[in-house]
């Protein structure tokens, strides 16, 4: 049986990054993710990896650009304002088709906001984030276990499609303790395949260039269409989600991350009252699991979106339902976390009490 440890989510995340064979981390301190660089600095030292505390998030993301272009697995971690600072770099990395891993432990915004858990960076994470036509593969874990497992998945997807990947979590997930099962063997970075784009010096091969620009007339347009096709492939192949009790449900909650945990508890309370409630938890926020939502919307009249923001996922749900279903919303922006009774109350409002 795999080893099991009681761990903070943020520490599980660090172990997951190390286990994924990543030996390069650069980041700048910001609450609520400081346990990540602190624990990372110790672990990278132990495994002979690179740990860089940078002068800014701008420097961190550009160090990632360099390390990713050099063909190694590289990670940065930050929280909302820091991720905003990184957007220029992420755009360049996407424009140069370089896989890297960016962690956003989301806090309340906009601006300095606060340091409480939030999901208010959904738009930024799922609609590109910086300038230009691009998307980042975005994973939303909801437990310490997934914080351990998702870095590996994120690197695999990032490398398969040569695209930056994001893990979108929040301070609540990062700072709660849960049992974590070490479900896979640590990956030896020396055994990962060589990358055919990696900048390593041109001995014995033609020189390589990593860049995001092309000034020749029409060429950038061509390149963007090529990348568009890649995004269509990702949308087709990589929609990930979990469903619970959807078979007989009259109402389905759609929630990710911390809100999915809250929604799951509310669903159980509702079921105890004979309210036929189901749950769909998007695991990939981009690509959004629109095919599953579309399929459910053929039958389900009511969806309840629960988020720690003002309703940023509603548009994706509404588009996926093709306007067939009613979309209800329970949101807590600015660092608020919804409680199961709050969600239950909303369910009862929609479904009209015990039936």
């Amino acid at each position, binding site marked *: 049986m795999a080893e099991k440890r009681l761990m903070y989510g943020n520490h599980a995340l660090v172990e997951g990054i190390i286990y994924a064979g990543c030996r390069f981390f650069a980041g700048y301190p910001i609450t609520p993710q400081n346990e990540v660089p602190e624990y990372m600095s110790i672990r990278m030292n132990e495994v002979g990896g*690179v740990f860089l505390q940078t*002068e800014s998030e*701008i420097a961190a993301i*550009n*160090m990632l650009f*360099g390390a990713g272009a050099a063909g*190694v697995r590289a990670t940065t971690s930050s929280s909302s304002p820091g991720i905003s600072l990184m957007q220029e770099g992420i755009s360049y990395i996407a424009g140069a088709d370089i896989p890297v891993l960016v962690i956003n432990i989301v806090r309340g915004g906009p601006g300095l906001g606060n340091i409480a858990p939030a999901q208010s960076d959904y738009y930024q994470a799922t609609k590109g984030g910086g300038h230009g036509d691009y998307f980042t593969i975005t994973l939303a874990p909801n437990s310490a276990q997934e914080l351990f497992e998702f870095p590996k998945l994120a690197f695999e997807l990032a490398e398969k499609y040569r695209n930056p990947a994001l893990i979108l979590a929040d301070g609540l997930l990062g700072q709660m303790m849960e049992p974590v099962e070490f479900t896979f063997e640590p990956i030896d970075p020396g055994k990962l395949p060589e990358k055919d784009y990696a900048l390593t010096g041109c001995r014995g091969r033609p*020189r*390589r*260039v990593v860049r995001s620009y092309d000034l020749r007339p029409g060429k950038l347009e061509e390149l963007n269409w090529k990348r568009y096709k890649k995004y269509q492939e990702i949308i087709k192949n990589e929609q990930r989600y979990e469903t619970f009790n959807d078979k007989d449900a009259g109402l389905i909650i759609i929630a990710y991350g911390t809100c999915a945990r809250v929604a799951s508890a509310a669903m159980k309370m509702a079921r105890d009252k004979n309210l036929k409630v189901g749950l769909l938890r998007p695991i990939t926020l981009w690509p959004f699991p629109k095919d599953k939502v579309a399929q459910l919307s053929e039958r389900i009249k009511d969806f309840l979106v629960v988020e720690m923001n003002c309703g940023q996922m509603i548009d994706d749900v509404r588009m996926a339902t093709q306007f067939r279903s009613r979309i209800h919303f329970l949101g807590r922006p600015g660092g608020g976390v919804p409680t199961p009774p709050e969600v239950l109350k909303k369910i009862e409002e929609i479904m009209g009490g015990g039936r």
Partner: protein
Amino acid sequence: MKLIFGRPAGLTDVKQRYCPGCGHGIVHRLVAELLVELNIRERAVGIAPVGCSVFADEYFNCDMIQPPHGRGPAVATGIKRARPDCILFSYQGDGDLAAIGTAETVHAAARNENITLIFINNAIYGMTGGQLAPTTLPGMRSTTSVQGRDIVKQGYPIKVCELLAGLDGPYYLVRCAVNTPKNIIRTKKALKTAFQNQINNKGFSLVEILSMCPTGWGMTPVQAKKWIGEVMSKYYPLGEFRNLAKEEK
């Protein structure tokens, strides 16, 4: 027939787009010669800035990367730490290195990061059409200081070598020029020292090079070279500002 002068193998065959009299072509050639002479071309990863020399990624015959404006030292750090055997050079102009990228420059120097920065100081934003640079001299005209740089409103230029010499970190800081054959030879020597420092794992080297921009300055190439000698190098004195190799001896 014996070939006595040709294009160094450190340069590609691509035709360079620099203006007549521009200093970039000279510095490119010096760097390219050293890539061959020091036998590091196949270990090198070069970094092209945003600015006139953005196309350096087409000109240097080695692995190249083109990062966001000013972030060369951060990208170089990432590659160097991931691939310590590679030889990193970040080729940057004054806007890239001393305005938008000041933080990355200062902190790479403070870490004594084992990389080589090649800093082209021509006191103007060339590619965007001649705007005020962080290195534009007091009183010097640009398209955003048409009456001349007003130090009351626009502040003073940044003397990068002097600024970095205030840090304990950097190993080698030197200012050169490419306005005369003598200065070109000295520049090549400084670049060679900078690359050798990196090969020997000594740390951070920055070679600042005063370089002609006849187009941006509204001068002929000959006037531009003269102006470096008579005006620019008076404000930015040439010479070494840090050379820890000498202290080690």
